């Protein structure tokens, strides 16, 4: 086994996240899929840091975590605001800007 396997795992996780965003209709679940993609990228960064024997990848993963935390706060607040006015968290129901 080589550390490349971690990269394969992360590629598969990223794909699952992408498919989830395409398939699921609940906005909060779509958001969770985005979190899964971020996690997959973090695993890639940590693995590259390990392969190179440097810490820079880990620092980048750390920054990704901070950005993800901020993103979750804002994203969930937006979803809650939409839910308050439209009583629905489905991405299909938010279509006021269509056409």
């Amino acid at each position, binding site marked *: *086994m*080589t550390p*490349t*396997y*971690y*990269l394969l*795992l992360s*590629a*598969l*996780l*990223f*794909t*699952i*996240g992408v*498919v*989830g965003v*395409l*398939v*699921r209709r*609940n*906005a*909060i*679940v779509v*958001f*969770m899929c985005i*979190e*899964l993609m971020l*996690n997959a990228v*973090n*695993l890639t960064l*940590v693995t590259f840091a*390990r*392969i*190179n*024997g*440097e*810490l*820079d990848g*880990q*620092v980048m*993963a*750390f920054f990704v*975590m*901070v950005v*993800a*935390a*901020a993103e979750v*706060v*804002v994203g*969930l*607040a937006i*979803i*809650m*605001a939409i*839910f*308050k*006015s439209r009583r629905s*968290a*489905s991405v*299909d129901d938010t279509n006021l800007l269509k056409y």
Partner: protein
Amino acid sequence: MSSMVLAQAAGEVSTGEAVTFWILGPAALAGGLGMIFSRSAVHSALWLVLSMLSLGVLYMVQSAPFLGFTQIIVYTGAVMMLFLFALMMAGRENADSVVEVLRGQRVLAALFGIGFAGLLVAGVTRALTNVTPAPQLDPNSPTGGGAGGLGRLIFTDYLFGFELTAILLIVAALAGIVLATRDRRNEGAKKTQKELVEARFRGEYKRKTPFPGPGVFATSNSVATPALLPDGRVAPESLSDLIESTTAAQLIAKHERLAVAAEDAKRAEQAKALVSGSSGREGSPGEEEAK
């Protein structure tokens, strides 16, 4: 022992790490798949927790203990709890609809996913087959993957980025507050008492008055006891729809029994008056009014 140290020095993967990977890697994949396929959003969140926990342990195995613990604390602790809060308030009851808005979208998405995964896996394996990884960093040394080594890097090479992160966090906190607080001038805002009274008398509601409270009697004062109208009938609006009141049914039955008895008594009196003669019939309306 010495062979293990030599293997680690050459950057090879130890047996323990391989075992951990082959247990937690499939667990992470199962978490991701479970998240996609479970209908309920809360189940999705729990599957995602499994995935994130496995990834956190995988970070620790790859000599990044600080990131591993941060992953568990920040992601599975804070972020997923935030998700569950939002789910409990918003999206829990509306499970994903089975209806496809775009025809064949799910099949196409699955095909796209398989193709994308194939492309990524093929690319990574082709590009990285002959890479010899560097020896694992010691997490306990000041330049390793522990908090010390990361802190040294963050506060020297990445100081500017770190400060931008601080700004980002402050702005995100402010945005969260602004988006979550309810604006008084908005349409969805709660009406004041005065606005509510005016709206009622404008006819925007069915009733002009508030609903009557439940009955308070010597025998019972629970919310399941209905209030009584002046003529002894039950006031149905005094009970909440949620309450299935046996007291109300009993009171209604009693009222009906009394009404039937009163009717019978009246009929008997009229019969008596008929028997006694025409003078009684003239007197009967006056008697009824007196009642």
